[in-house]
């Protein structure tokens, strides 16, 4: 078959996609081809421009602007210093870091352990997988209000269950010491399905010979997990770890719905809730943007460091 000279076919074009064809008159065709290709792109590109890229740029400018009586003025660093001097700022960060820490202990470890366990079962895996994923499909309002009822100190289910084991009633969402962990438990239940299924798929890709070899060397259950399971899934584990941190640092819906945002004495007020409050309760868009910028810089910095640290180990 004589290959058509248009560069869009033939595998060679995959290597040099923008290489201009040498045939005379083909410039016009290349232009035409590009026009049609960009025509297919234009809708999505417009949407990204208006609702993603432009807001990104705008976020940056907002952080250094003040808005008063419909007039926008340059504010320099004053938004940032305002945010840093707000006592709520530090409390929100402490709460967010606490949430992230607890969510890592629960939300990162539990799905992995569940996946390792389910992977051993020769029966009922489909059913169990379905169960774990069910809450992910619930609208958040439904799962959150369910947990609100379970946490109720009066007629709530959780205190009844604790009662069976002789543990005294807890205040759950109403006490500063338990509010955050209660939110984390609910959030883990709601969201663990996705991570569990991803880990299961990764576990199923581990070659069985590795376990056999480990057994020949006399490894027990824990050493097999430590020396085979974890190293073999490290890539996906480290990726999920990063995504989990980025996601949990942005937590909003769960505390907002469970504890009306701030919780008892502000004990569940997160950074994103503070952004929300600045913008939509105090009409302080500059402060909200400045706070957002702090979060953005912190997460971007964290991702960069994390990616750099985890790279050399992959050789």
């Amino acid at each position: 078959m004589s290959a058509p000279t248009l560069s869009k076919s033939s595998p060679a074009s995959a290597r040099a996609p923008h290489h201009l064809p040498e045939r005379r008159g083909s410039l016009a065709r290349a232009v035409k081809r590009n026009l049609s290709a960009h025509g297919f792109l234009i809708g999505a590109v417009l949407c990204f421009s208006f609702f993603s890229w432009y807001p990104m740029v705008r976020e940056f400018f907002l952080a250094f602007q003040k808005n008063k009586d419909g007039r926008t003025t340059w504010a320099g660093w004053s938004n940032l210093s305002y945010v840093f001097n707000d006592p709520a700022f530090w409390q929100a960060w402490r709460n967010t870091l606490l949430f992230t820490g607890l969510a890592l202990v629960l939300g990162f470890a539990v799905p992995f352990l569940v996946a390792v366990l389910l992977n051993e079962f020769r029966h009922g895996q489909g059913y169990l997988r379905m169960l774990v994923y069910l809450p992910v499909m619930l609208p958040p309002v439904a799962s959150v209000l369910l947990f609100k009822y379970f946490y109720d100190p009066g007629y709530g289910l959780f205190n009844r269950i604790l009662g069976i084991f002789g543990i005294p009633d807890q205040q759950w969402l109403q006490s500063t010491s338990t509010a955050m962990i209660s939110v984390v438990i609910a959030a883990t239940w709601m969201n663990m399905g996705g991570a569990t299924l991803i880990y299961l798929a990764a576990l199923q890709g581990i070659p069985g010979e590795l376990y056999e070899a480990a057994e020949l060397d006399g490894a027990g259950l824990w050493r097999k997990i430590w020396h085979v399971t974890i190293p073999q899934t490290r890539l996906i584990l480290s990726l999920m770890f990063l995504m989990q941190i980025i996601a949990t640092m942005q937590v909003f819906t769960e505390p907002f719905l469970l504890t009306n945002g701030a919780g008892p004495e502000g004990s569940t007020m997160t950074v994103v809730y503070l952004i929300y409050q600045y913008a939509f309760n105090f009409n302080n868009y500059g402060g909200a943007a400045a706070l957002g910028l702090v979060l953005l810089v912190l997460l971007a910095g964290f991702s960069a460091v994390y990616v750099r640290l985890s790279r050399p180990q992959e050789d």
Partner: protein
Amino acid sequence: MRPRTLISPAQLGRRRGKVVYWVVFALVMVLFTLVFLGPMYWMVSGGLKTTQEFVKSPPTLVPTSVHPGNYRDAWRVMDLAKLLGNTLYYAFGALAFQLVLDVAAAYSLSKLRPLFGNVILGMMLATLMIPATVLVVPQYLTVLDVPIFERNLLNSPWVIWLPSVTNAFNIFLLKRFFDSIPQELLDAASIDGASALRTLRSVVLPISRPILGVVSIFAVVGVWKDFLWPMLTLPDPGKQTLNVGIYSLASGVPENWLIAALTIASLPTLILFLLFQRNIMSGLTAGGLKG
């Protein structure tokens, strides 16, 4: 035969192994059913109880008297038909926009390879790195007064539909699938004189049914589950989604009605999940294993 896992078949074959396996298996089956299905049972049955029975301590496992009328009352009082209709309208509109615009974009980036295509793809993927919540404020200000068009999109369905197109993850999934379609197929179509659009319609789309299914489900579920954005951009109670509407009505209705409303709001996505379980799970791992 299933691949070997952590525990060796020999160990499982022994008497003790068998006993341990079945005990652990039974425990996990019971525990998981209680933990994950239990709350849903509690929700459905709670909607059938009277208000007095609902707040009784200790709670009853089976409603002493069944009141299916709660569901009817909740439906009527909270105007769930309206909320449900709104949510369906937003979800399927968003699906239509994503299917047309994101598929076209992914097709172009994967197969037509326009100039600067990689730059555009890179800029789209970069949006995945930006914490989404950081953008809520500037996005909100943008839809208040969309530049160039100078339109206020608040309370209009566009405010859900158009931003839903900026789903870089879906574009990435689609592009990866299109990349795996052999170029020879497209060449054959173009030799036969098919235009790019025709090739997309008659060659690419029919092969891509599995990934289109996955992307569609994620699109619908995404809108169904979203809370913050619709709460901000659809303040008109007549335009709200189920999530936001139920949340704002929650404190004003009796508990048993509220629980009935939650059951009704949960049903569509649960049914969707039971019907398309396999597609959802394959889509999830397809995205997760990108490495």
